[in-house]
């Protein structure tokens, strides 16, 4: 059953088409990789899907429900949550408090929220940082914090935007393991990533965007051997 | 990148102050002068800058002229007590609908 359907989604900024007629589906429980050169429109698509701004055209259907025009807070409450390309910790609040903000989406009780938060902090292995101010954490831990926070909102679909960006190989491996653990919890994921090895390892299917349009879609093996995809990436690195 | 940021800030601040002082001396023959005379102009200066567009000198000039006209015209039709309100309402409209101003170089 498709948990997310993207139908002919386009987003225009003035005359620029950041996304053009993008169409694909995500099945429940899978990990969908979203790749493409810089400026391909991946984050724009995320923003449209999560309500940060509405698509100019097309339909976004989540769990059978049309999402166009819904605000980010409604989107989150319906079970779709996202992390940010540039990490956004609630700097002056502690790690626990950060994750509690996520949990408070599902409960009004601070005590319950704290319980939920501590659980998610364990999932991302940040237990020893619970009382630390979020703004004082190094980048790797901030990324983990953001994942914990978003997990606390009990999402059905999790959108990860370059969650491995700026991490060293050891940290990236931790995140990869985390993503696989999240999959075991039954949460569907869509992952934007530049790290090809990581994407190949974790994705069940991959969508490739280029200049706002869908270039290709398929299994990791199909994508890797797709000439157009290779050309798009090689072409970019020649520039 | 080779630019002494602090010094530029200071120079900009100084130039701005000098210009304001010039403006002040220019209106003093026709305006009642007292220590708090500046406060009315503080907010108006902001309004003019935002209206004209931050970062644009032509914009500021244009803004100044527009505000001056708006004030006088408003004063004629609504009475001198309300002319400041015209300026503030104009300000809010600009902030809401075109925060980069008329000619601003917006970095948003």
């Amino acid at each position, binding site marked *: 059953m498709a948990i997310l359907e993207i139908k002919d989604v386009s987003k225009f900024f003035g005359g620029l088409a950041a996304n053009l007629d993008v169409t694909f589906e995500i099945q429940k429980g899978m990990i969908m990789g979203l790749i493409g050169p810089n400026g391909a429109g991946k984050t724009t698509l995320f923003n449209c899907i999560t309500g940060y701004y509405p698509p100019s055209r097309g339909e976004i259907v989540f769990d059978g429900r049309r999402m166009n025009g819904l605000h980010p807070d409604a989107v989150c409450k319906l079970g779709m949550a996202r992390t940010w390309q540039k990490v956004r910790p609630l700097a002056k609040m502690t790690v626990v408090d950060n994750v509690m903000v996520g949990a408070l989406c599902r409960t009004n009780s601070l005590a319950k929220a704290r319980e939920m938060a501590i659980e998610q902090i364990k999932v991302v292995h940040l237990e020893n940082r619970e009382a630390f101010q979020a703004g004082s954490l190094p980048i790797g831990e901030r990324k983990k914090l953001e994942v914990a926070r978003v997990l606390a909102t009990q999402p059905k679909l999790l959108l990860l935007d370059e969650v491995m960006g700026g991490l060293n190989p050891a940290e990236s491996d931790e995140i990869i393991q985390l993503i696989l653990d999240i999959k075991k919890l039954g949460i569907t994921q869509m992952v934007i990533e530049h790290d090809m090895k990581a994407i190949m390892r974790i994705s069940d299917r991959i969508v490739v965007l280029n200049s706002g349009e869908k270039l290709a879609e398929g299994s990791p093996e199909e994508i890797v051997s797709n000439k157009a995809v290779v050309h798009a990436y090689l072409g970019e690195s020649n520039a | 990148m080779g630019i002494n940021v602090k010094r530029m800030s200071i120079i900009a601040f100084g130039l701005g102050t000098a210009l304001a002082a010039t403006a002040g001396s220019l209106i003093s023959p026709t305006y009642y002068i007292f220590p708090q005379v500046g406060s009315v102009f503080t907010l108006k200066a902001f309004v003019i800058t935002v209206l004209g567009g931050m970062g644009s000198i032509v914009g500021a000039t244009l803004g100044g002229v527009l505000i001056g006209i708006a004030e006088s015209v408003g004063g004629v039709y609504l009475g001198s007590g309300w002319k400041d309100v015209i300026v503030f309402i104009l*300000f*809010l409209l600009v902030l809401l609908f075109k925060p980069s101003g008329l000619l601003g170089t917006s970095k948003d």
Partner: protein
Amino acid sequence: MRPLTNNMRGIAAIPVLLGLVTVIVLFLIPKFVHSTYALHMMILIFISIIMGSGWNLLGGYTGQYSVGHAAYFGAGTYTTMILLQYHHLAPWYGVWAGAIMAVIVALVIGSICFRLRGPYFVLASIAVAEIFRVSALNLKNLTNGAEGILITEVPPLRIGGMVITDFMSKVPFYYAGLVIVLVVILVTWRVQNSKLGYYFQAIREDQDAAHSLGINLSLYKNIALSLSAIFTSLAGSLYGLYVGFIDPGTVLGLDLSVQIVMTVIIGGIGTIFGPVIGALVLVPFSEALRSNMIAQALIDSGLVREDSGFGVFLKEQLSHAHVLIYGILLVVVIMYMPDGVMGFIKKLAAKGRKVEAA
């Protein structure tokens, strides 16, 4: 990287006991202290705490730095005074009418200003407050314009058949102020330790992140604003009834808005007792300056000769310099203690604990 401890959140026995003792002492002060000047000072401090705490909810906790809070102060006090003086409605009903009016004003202002962020929000809040002030000046039929409103009598407070007070002395205003201060502090404490508080702070830290975590920005900003407006309007109503006279420049002016912000910044933004400390610092200080106490003290101590040029200058001009000194104080605080006095204290406490652990 240092762990933050939750010393403000958990309730340890000692602070609570100290707090209770302080409250009892405050309630007993008018019995033993008869100096009207001291009571006057306390009432002004209370008013400052109330309006500072009001601002703190919106500015300190939710990160919406309004420099137009005089609009709520003025809405509250004008409503109360107009109803009392022209419609003979007793002030204990009037202050609530004032609070309702302030919330209406707040929701209108919010609908305009909350679309804006950062410095644009600040500028808009100033502009809106100024619109209210100029309107109050011009709508002479309603507000008596620049001449202001002077109340000629406050009806005595009767419960059952008994007269509790006739408002002739300062004491009833002292108790009214004290009670409101305690309520405001209690509410701030409850908000801080609730979902509301978490959501407010999330909005302050990163609005877009908060939005994506299921927080309805508009709803929570308006809740913060409404609470903020209610408290500020109560301060305004108390001020108007106490002083007996209000006019647009005093209760709707930019000076007042700036003073409210400064009180909280100096004391410590986003903390329960920040506004208290800010008020305790600024109110006596500005009163001392205004009444020439400092100039007189300098002269009496022999540091400055009364008939010297400097002495004369001090005596005549220092009282006017209170604004200048506010400004200097503000600059000093922002440069060296950006989290205000409370922030400074917290840092010292954390350092102390670090030394212990080492």
